[in-house]
């Protein structure tokens, strides 16, 4: 523990984050394989992975860049539907599920990145509340567009329409996206393992980025925009870099999420989802990646565990949220945690010193 504390802060974060994910995988994967998990629990594994990726990527925008984005679910939705289309359209071309999943995730990420670029260019000129409002609007626009989007595939290729299925003009084709019903007939190819791989990939990207020239520039803009400009950092360039990276990762998470269900509707990615992810980020701590992982896991599981209390579950959820807030932010709680840490550390130290004396 002492040795661990003497490590550099960035190394410590990396070790804890990767460690938590790998340990979780080592525990949950055998349980899942041997069917020891309840159905409800097993069904939550991929969504949790997705939301962890969402929280980490949003933390890049909110915590590291310091801009409030309320439309993160919008990018998730772009990724989800692009991924679903890719996967359905390539069903015959790439029969191997893992490879198809990989391609779908990449395509989902690319399209979400393009959406991020298009939204980012005008939006990142704004600051604070205005940026939040515009990203919120973006999330709603995407949702409404997908709500009236019809996509089908037949031998001649993809057909897209904004009217109805008939106007697709397909010959014996398959409908992939059916307006308000969303993506239908998805082959469920997401697995827990692929979710873990995506989290590790996200951690790799975000942690590396934070601890690099680019990451320092992004943090510098958050800490003091004017000073960052005065040392020759192009504000727009680095804001966009952070924003696009964040949306690419959200798109990838979206694709993974969609491929875990047989149907996914656009209304799943509404304002509430954006806020939920923001709650994970805020309660996990701004710019704190490990915190995002832990907060997401706990807060996502609470409503599921409380399912048996039916009507009361959101009430209890609210209480849990308040408790987490109190515990993470109050000065007394911080002092308490420090004391606990100190106590544990000192005892270890004493033991070690005694060990030395005994030698």
């Amino acid at each position, binding site marked *: 523990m002492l040795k661990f504390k003497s490590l550099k802060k960035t190394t410590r974060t990396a070790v804890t984050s990767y460690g938590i994910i790998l340990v979780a995988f080592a525990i949950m994967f055998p349980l899942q394989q041997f069917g020891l998990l309840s159905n409800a629990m097993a069904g939550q594994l991929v969504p949790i992975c997705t939301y962890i990726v969402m929280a980490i990527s949003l933390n890049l925008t909110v915590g590291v860049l310091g801009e409030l984005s309320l439309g993160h679910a919008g990018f998730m939705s772009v990724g989800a539907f692009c991924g679903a289309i890719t996967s359905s359209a390539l069903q015959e071309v790439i029969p191997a599920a893992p490879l198809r999943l990989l391609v779908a995730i990449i395509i989902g990420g690319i399209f979400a990145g393009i959406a991020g670029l298009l939204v980012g260019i005008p939006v990142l000129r704004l600051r604070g509340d205005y940026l939040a409002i515009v990203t919120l609007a973006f999330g709603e626009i995407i949702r409404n567009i997908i709500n009236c989007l019809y996509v089908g595939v037949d031998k001649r290729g993809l057909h897209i329409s904004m009217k109805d299925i008939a106007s697709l003009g397909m010959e014996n084709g398959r409908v992939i996206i059916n307006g308000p019903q969303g993506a239908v007939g998805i082959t469920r190819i997401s697995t827990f393992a692929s979710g873990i791989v995506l989290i590790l990939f996200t951690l790799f990207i975000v942690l590396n*980025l934070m*601890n690099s*020239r680019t990451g320092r520039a992004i943090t510098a803009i958050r800490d*003091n925009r*004017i*000073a960052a400009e*005065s040392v*020759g950092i192009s504000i727009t360039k680095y804001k966009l870099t952070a924003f696009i990276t964040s949306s690419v990762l959200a798109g990838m998470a979206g694709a993974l999420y969609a491929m875990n269900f047989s149907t996914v509707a656009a209304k799943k990615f509404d304002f509430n989802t954006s806020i939920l992810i923001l709650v994970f980020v805020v309660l996990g701590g701004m710019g704190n990646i490990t915190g995002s992982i832990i907060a997401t896991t706990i807060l996502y599981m609470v409503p599921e565990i409380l399912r048996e209390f039916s009507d009361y579950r959101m009430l209890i959820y609210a209480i849990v949220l308040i408790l987490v807030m109190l515990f993470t932010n109050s000065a007394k709680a911080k002092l308490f945690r420090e004391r606990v840490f100190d106590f544990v550390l000192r005892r270890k130290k004493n033991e070690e010193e005694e060990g030395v004396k005994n030698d």
Partner: protein
Amino acid sequence: MTKMVPVPSRGIIPERDVDKRPILETHHLGIDFGGLTAVDDISLTIGRTEISGLIGPNGAGKTTVFNMLTNVYQPTRGTILLDGKPTAGKTTAQVNRMGIARTFQNIRLFSNMSVLDNVKVGLHNEIKENLFASVTHAFGYVKAERKARERALELLDFFSMADMADAEAGSLPYGAQRRLEIVRALATNPGIILLDEPAAGMNPSETAELMENIRRIRDTFGIAVLLIEHDMSLVMNLCEGICVLDHGKVIAKGSPDEIKQNPAVIEAYLGKKKEAE
């Protein structure tokens, strides 16, 4: 680590006699805010290794001049030439890359980052690594990071701050924060550094140390220094050329001795002598 002498940025071997070839020139610079003319008709010439001062009573427009020189404000009139090249239409970041670095009157550090990282941010355009290297931590990342770390420590060591490298910038004592701002500005490898009230809030011994440091910056890096300061003993002892502003206009220019004798300056600072009753 073997200690290295900081690299002189422009390859000028410092001589005791000042290089007067201009690094920075302004011609009839002026700016209006709405209908109000804040600063008007400022013409300055600053030599390559000259230490110059910009003084004047409060509200004279000194910081506004700095903001125009760094294009934080776009001047309404006049031109700025940096090393002979106009800076009109450039962003603040681009002007910095052209060779102007600055510090701020109210300290603007990246207070949540470490001292070392603050300087590394300053080295942003000096030691580059591309986005791909940033994300993968390979392809030149290790080499660039090591180079940045060494250079940053070298610069910090120049101001005897290397032992504070891992501290959080916001937790430093006031004087050290001011010094760190100067180190960060120097890290951008400028041709001229603008210091906005570097001695504000310092005691006499700290001020004396600061004066020594400013001379060392000029001599070692071979760059020009333009400073705004209210501490007259610092300005008079340090600067080779002084420009006095009042109500947004230049009222006097010259050597310290000329400025001390100038009736217009005395009037601006002390008020007009009343006619004998």
